[in-house]
């Protein structure tokens, strides 16, 4: 039983947490790619920016003496999302829109987004310094729920933290909401239409500028959610999401660029693959030691890949996916 609990703690829960973060980030990347046709490299830093905005708001609320049962950063999330979305719109207007207007190639936009990455990182470090912070303000602490499993014969509990629970629920809600928006609402359909054929969308009288704005609003606010959740789960630092932007891209591509659902599937796929690749199978197979003959005991570490190479797992999957099914799991948008 302990082996099962271990598996749940180490694979199911860990994988879901990481998958939710990847998925939320990848949705934004995939939408921007589908509609604006470029790989938005600054997305990771948009996530970080969102987390810092939530941090500032939470600190401000806490300073006013407001105490709530939920983490403050989560409570202020709606406002933080709005602010991040506004900043995302500003970034587009300031840096990407002029390039698009001049018919720049996608790679030029990609490089511009690297410029934006550097600017955001510089500014965040400038304002907040480069150290790690806790997003739990005013003496809040992370609640850890330990589900006792002794009734099932387990000696260890199943562990889950409050932000993780919030994150699962939030991710599920967002996925459903996004699905409904894209398939039911007129604007959502217009987004898909524009992703399909921007010129024709314009000719049809679709307000393409509006669609672009909506895209940034969605991408920006989801980035804020992802960043804040990540900060709640781990810690708040200036390179919070920059370090995971590559796996997020991998998730978006594995899912099929331009596909919102693909991004979600890709996110979970990459997350679980990473988790499983470095998972030590001895932990669940240890009962076998009882049946195995003497001298053939399982080695202490039966992981497929040493942890130093964990990051590469996402990329190996990516490369294999690209070779076997180049358009991703869902058929990706074509350029």
């Amino acid at each position, binding site marked *: 039983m302990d082996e099962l609990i271990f598996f749940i703690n180490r694979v199911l829960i860990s994988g879901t947490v990481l998958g939710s973060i990847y998925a939320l980030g990848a949705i934004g990347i995939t939408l921007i790619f589908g509609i604006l046709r470029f790989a938005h490299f600054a997305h990771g830093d948009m996530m970080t920016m969102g987390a810092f905005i939530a941090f500032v708001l939470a600190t401000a609320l806490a300073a006013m003496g407001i105490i709530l049962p939920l983490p403050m950063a989560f409570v202020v999330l709606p406002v933080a999302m709005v602010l991040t979305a506004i900043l995302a719109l500003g970034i587009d207007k300031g840096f990407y829109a002029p390039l698009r207007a001049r018919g720049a190639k996608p790679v030029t936009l990609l490089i511009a987004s690297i410029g934006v990455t550097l600017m955001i990182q510089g500014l965040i470090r400038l304002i907040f310094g480069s150290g790690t912070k806790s997003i739990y303000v005013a003496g809040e602490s992370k609640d850890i729920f330990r589900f006792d499993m002794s009734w099932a014969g387990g000696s260890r509990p199943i562990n889950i933290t409050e932000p993780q629970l919030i994150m699962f629920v939030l991710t599920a809600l967002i996925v459903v909401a996004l699905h409904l928006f894209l398939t039911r609402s*007129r604007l959502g359909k217009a987004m*898909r239409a524009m992703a399909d*054929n921007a*010129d*024709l969308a314009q*000719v*049809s*009288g*679709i307000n393409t500028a509006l669609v672009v704005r909506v895209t940034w609003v969605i991408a920006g606010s989801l980035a804020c959610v992802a960043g804040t959740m990540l900060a709640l789960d781990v810690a708040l630092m200036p390179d919070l999401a920059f370090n995971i932007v590559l796996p997020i891209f991998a998730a978006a591509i594995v899912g099929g660029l331009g596909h919102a659902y693909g991004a979600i599937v890709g996110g979970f796929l990459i997350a679980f693959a990473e988790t499983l690749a470095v998972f030590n199978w001895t932990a669940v197979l240890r009962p076998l030691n009882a049946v195995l003959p003497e001298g053939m005991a399982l080695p202490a570490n039966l992981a497929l890949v040493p942890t130093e190479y964990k990051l590469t797992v996402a990329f190996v999957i990516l490369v294999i996916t690209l070779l076997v099914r180049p358009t991703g799991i869902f058929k990706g948008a074509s350029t």
Partner: protein
Amino acid sequence: MPLIELKHVVGGYGGAPILNGVDIAIEKSDIGVIVGPNGAGKSTTLKAIFGLLKVTGGTIEFGGENIANSLPDKLVPKGLSFVPQEKNVFTSLSVEENLEMGAFTRSDDYSETMEWVYDMFPVLREKRRQPAGELSGGQRQMVAMGRALMSRPSLLMLDEPSAGLSPRYVIEIFETIQRVNQEGVGILMVEQNARQALAFASKGFVLAQGQNRFTGTGPELIADPEVAKSFLGG
């Protein structure tokens, strides 16, 4: 007063002008056809009307108002619609969603219009749930036209609607265009299948090097030996 009137339109893509004074006038009951050699500026004329390139001279009046250099999302609600020559359907959207996109600028209930379009193209009703990318060339052309009609335009512009279609579809498409026209929609189209198109055109315009060469009814132009020789292939 004509439905649309181009007076000496000059325009281009940023360099030297491609259009050097084009005059076109269409009534609501008209089917206007523009013909001319390759590179004459026919497609450019349609794009100029639809605000897709910069008009630097002349006027484009639609319903008495100068619409030169307005963008499509302003023009569509005014009653203009455009079917480009290629890539004219949203391939990943279903037929019905394609039609909805045509009605994007409308805020009223458009289900009646959709019925009207389905009545005009019954095949589309059968395939309403299918992605448009899976349709044959002719069916796609119908989707494209249906999408353009969803905004209930008073003027429908088509760029080479028959190009690449097999003879049977060419006939069908031309019949459809006439039918749409009878429903009270003015038509302005560019065609290289000139003889067939001019045969039912109430207005014909021959363009060369960005200028009008000949203007008349369709049958008049076909009958003109000079037009026939230089532009209709003898």
